[in-house]
């Protein structure tokens, strides 16, 4: 019977409160994403203008180096190719990953370090419920940011002839979202097992940086080329979603990484002693 003055719609559940806590962060991340999309759109015409020079310059690179920096499909002049190598090659996934890893690390470990978890878990809300709600909030947050990025590109691209297709943009943004959720879930799992926020951020970011490099560099050496398929980043962009759409198998691999990390988070959190 939580009545009128005491009832707050955005504080009705762990999920609602976690989303409420993210409001401000989401606003600023959204502004950052729109600015990033705008910047890439504004620069596109000058890339097209200088396409010839850039292509010749690129051809002077040794094959291996070219692959490492621009991928085997060294097209950065078409709208899709440009966004693939530039925005979706680095900044886009970086922004979403940083958000998701932060949210995942904060979910359990943040509350534990701030010592708010004891009271929260002394209510009839189970550990499982708290973890599920926090995970859903992370997915919602990453989803909102992906949507913002998509809308920004759909609206800001056309004035600069940056038009890879609305569906293709949706595919690329979805792949970015899935990648972010996978790394967010890894951070959530480390936080749920250890209760340490910095460790969760460190482990998830470390795995992110290492697998990003593996995805970029492994194909340049035949002996270790197979390593590329161990990297989440391979499943993120091997199919070049912004040109070719989403590969369902690749999408499922990213989802599976998230699901396994979430299952581990749950197992660790359920069995553990919480820090006072």
């Amino acid at each position, binding site marked *: *019977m*939580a*009545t*009128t*003055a*005491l*009832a*707050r719609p955005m*504080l*009705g*559940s*762990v999920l609602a*409160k976690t989303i409420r*806590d993210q409001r401000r962060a989401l606003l600023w991340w959204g502004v950052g994403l729109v600015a990033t999309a705008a910047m890439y759109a504004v620069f596109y015409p000058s890339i097209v203008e200088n396409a010839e020079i850039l292509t010749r310059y690129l051809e002077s690179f040794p094959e291996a180096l070219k692959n490492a920096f621009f991928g085997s499909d060294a097209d950065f002049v078409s709208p899709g190719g440009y966004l693939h190598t530039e925005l979706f090659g680095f900044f886009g996934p970086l922004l979403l990953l940083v958000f998701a890893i932060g949210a995942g690390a904060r979910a359990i470990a943040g509350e534990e370090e*701030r*010592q*708010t978890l*004891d*009271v*929260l*878990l*002394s*209510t*009839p*809300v*189970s550990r499982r419920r708290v973890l599920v709600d926090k995970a859903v909030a992370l997915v919602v947050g990453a989803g909102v940011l992906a949507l913002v990025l998509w809308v920004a590109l759909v609206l800001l691209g056309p004035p600069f002839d940056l038009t890879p297709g609305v569906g293709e943009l949706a595919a690329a943004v979805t792949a970015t979202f899935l990648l972010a959720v996978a790394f967010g879930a890894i951070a959530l799992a480390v936080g749920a097992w250890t209760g340490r926020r910095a460790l969760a951020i460190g482990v998830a970011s470390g795995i992110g940086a290492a697998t990003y490099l593996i995805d970029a560099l492994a194909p340049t050496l035949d002996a270790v080329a197979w390593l590329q398929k161990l990297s989440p980043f391979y499943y993120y962009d091997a199919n070049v979603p912004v040109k070719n759409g989403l590969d369902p198998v690749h999408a499922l691999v990213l989802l599976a990484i998230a699901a396994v990390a979430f299952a581990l988070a749950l197992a660790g959190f359920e069995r553990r*002693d*919480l820090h*006072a």
Partner: protein
Amino acid sequence: MSEVIRVEGLTKLYGRSRGVLELTFSVEAGEVFGYLGPNGAGKTTTIRTFLDLIRPTGGRALVLGMDPRRDAHEIHRRVGYLPGEFGLYDQLTGAEYLAYLAALRGDVDEQHVRELAERFRLDLSARIRSLSHGNRQKLALIQAFMHRPELLILDEPTQGLDPLMQHEFYGLISEVRREGRTVFLSSHVMPEVERVCDRVGIIREGRLVTVEDVGELRAKELRTLEVHMADHVAAEELAYVPGVQQVVSEGDLLRLTVAGSMDPVVKALARHEVLDLVSHEPSLEDIFLAFYGSDGVETADASAVAGG
């Protein structure tokens, strides 16, 4: 059900020195049970096993007849808990904080929340970030009481409260007892426990030293009196007054150690002109040393008379 909490051989080991060992005691329905011990004795460890925040290494604790691990949901619904150390959501107001916890509980009477806030003189519209330590403690206390739980588990409930609010808190505990509800509270100060509790469990270095009625404990307790007399009074005159364990007389100052009732010694002193009288509460360590020895084994009273 008469046993609200039942602890059987409860052991929790962390590393080498911390934790609790083989605790066995029970808390009866309707009583106020004090859990007394110095900081680091294992009070918080014991309490957190009751709420399934940590799991025992051995033995078990039953709360409201249920196992905390298996029936956490039901226990949490019926228990109010104040942690010894806690954080609050700084960006919320007090009202928002309580609204959140009330929504998670689902059976909170808002009128009661308002009464509690008025009683503790807490402004619920202020942001938690701006609250003093004492006001944060009040807010955490309100969340423990707000759903009228049948069992309250309070870890060091009066820390940070000023004397007036401590008094208010003691009043609230008495009301809760009158309503037949049960309170388990930890403390590291004897007078507090004596004031509000029916029975006391004393814990030291992870082991339960004793469980006693407050009356018995008080009878054994040593107090130190400092009395300024108008004239010199010989120590011998007071040495054989019942309860007096030790007397030192220096000029017109008397220092006495007294066990049990103060009545005989006060009447003996009253034959002279008393200028001032100060009574010191014994520290917990004094109590342990006087009654249980340093290894927790009860020893014979060591009394001595020193003349001056």
